[in-house]
């Protein structure tokens, strides 16, 4: 059930510094990702991470000029947008975190003119899925089961492995469209 053999689902690899770049920024949606191996590859690596939830909005202290901490994912992405406006060729962006975060970062980078060869992503943390209902286009966050009810239209959605990087979401399709009510039991699949 986990691997449906669909090739659009991203395959992530361990992050490595791309030495064809001159300046490197790493972003993560959690401070729990161990960035040391990456930092060891590039002395000038900047590290931005979202503070843990228990900091409750208290401004995180700046440890040094190359390390920044953010109150929320939203804050990090906004700061990233601002930063990328002034960046120049030779820049490389790295991200670690949940899949939704990764592709939100990717979309932000793409908006700023970065291409696939300048952004590197690795999955870290929860495998819960963001699922777009293909019928009503509602985004359902944090889906943990193979079948989930759409918050928008109420349909029982089968979570396909078909993944849109642009939407940062998996596709949900009504599982009992042909024979309404014929809904197989949902299984826990994404933690």
């Amino acid at each position: 059930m986990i691997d449906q053999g669909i090739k659009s689902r991203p395959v992530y690899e361990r992050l490595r510094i791309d030495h064809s770049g001159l300046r490197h920024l790493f972003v993560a949606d959690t401070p729990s990702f161990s960035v040391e191996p990456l930092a060891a590859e590039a002395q000038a690596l900047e590290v931005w991470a979202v503070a843990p939830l228990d900091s409750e909005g208290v401004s995180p202290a700046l440890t040094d000029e190359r390390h920044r901490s953010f109150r929320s994912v939203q804050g990090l992405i906004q700061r990233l947008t601002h930063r990328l406006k002034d960046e120049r060729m030779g820049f490389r962006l790295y991200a670690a975190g949940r899949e939704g975060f990764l592709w939100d970062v990717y979309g932000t980078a793409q908006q700023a003119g970065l291409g696939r060869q300048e952004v590197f992503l690795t999955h870290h943390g929860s495998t819960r899925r963001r699922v777009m209902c293909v019928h009503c286009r509602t985004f359902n966050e944090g889906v943990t089961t193979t079948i989930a009810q759409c918050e928008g239209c109420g349909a029982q959605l089968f979570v396909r492995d078909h993944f849109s990087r642009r939407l940062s979401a998996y596709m949900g399709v009504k599982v009992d469209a042909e024979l309404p009510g014929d809904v197989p039991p949902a299984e826990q699949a994404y933690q």
Partner: protein
Amino acid sequence: MIVEGKLSARVVGVDTISPTLKRFRFAPQGGGQFPTAAPGAHILVTLRGPDRVWKNSYSLVTTPEQRDQYAIIVRRADASRGGSHFLHDVITGGEAVELSAPASLFPIASLARKHILISGGIGLTPFLSYVPVLRSRKATFELHQFCSEGEAGVFRDLLGNEDGRIHVHGSTSRPALDQILADQPLGTHVYTCGPDRLMEGVAQTARRLGFPENAIHQESFGAATGGQPFVVRLTRSRKTIEVGETQTLLEALEAAGVEAPCLCRGGACGVCLVPVVDGEPEHRDHVLSDAERAEGRIIATCVSRAKSASLVLDL
């Protein structure tokens, strides 16, 4: 647009631009319109001389919207394979020629935020069709043309008014490539066409400055050079042909009357690929994957040669 066969055309004008540069203008035989040509497109021109046939590729210098005429600019090269001599010395206007449909192997990158065009000498030609297109798209771009001091005026005239985006650098006032390519905004793409040394220099400088490979574009046709002579045997047509040191495999096939497929004649389009039955190819194309190269079972006849003394082709 479905183009069946070649485009029949005639030469409707020859303009002398400088002692070594001429512009040749073609119109469709019998009137009508040519197919829309891509910016940066090239055409394969077939010229029939009294005792041989030349097939050479040239960049179009006309814009996509110009369909009543195509134009090319050709330098009379001392060490050319003959086509430029024939064009310069024999073609005066009115002659019938065959053209291929325009092919695009040097397109404008759709996602680029800024375009930097760097050319040397007659390598400017593809950019003559780029510039009007970039202007009409209101794209951010700059062009740097490197040339001898004596030709700077000629190229300035070809490019039209300088508006701060067009830079013609004669030999006395050349900026370093570093200066041109440093400190560029994200999404900048660089395109280069000209002598190998310039193109290599641009690519290396861009890489050093952190441009990813997909942001570096090189016009790749016309760079074929010769090498050791070798013998090619053809299994289907049962011919044995010698390939001389200043001749390409494709030219040798054509000289022997073999109907060999081809389009770009620069190892980029893949049309001329032919199966190799025996022998070891020396690959010089831009088409084959590393795996296909290592396997050595297929060869681009327009640029590639042989490492072994002979090759056997399924042709």
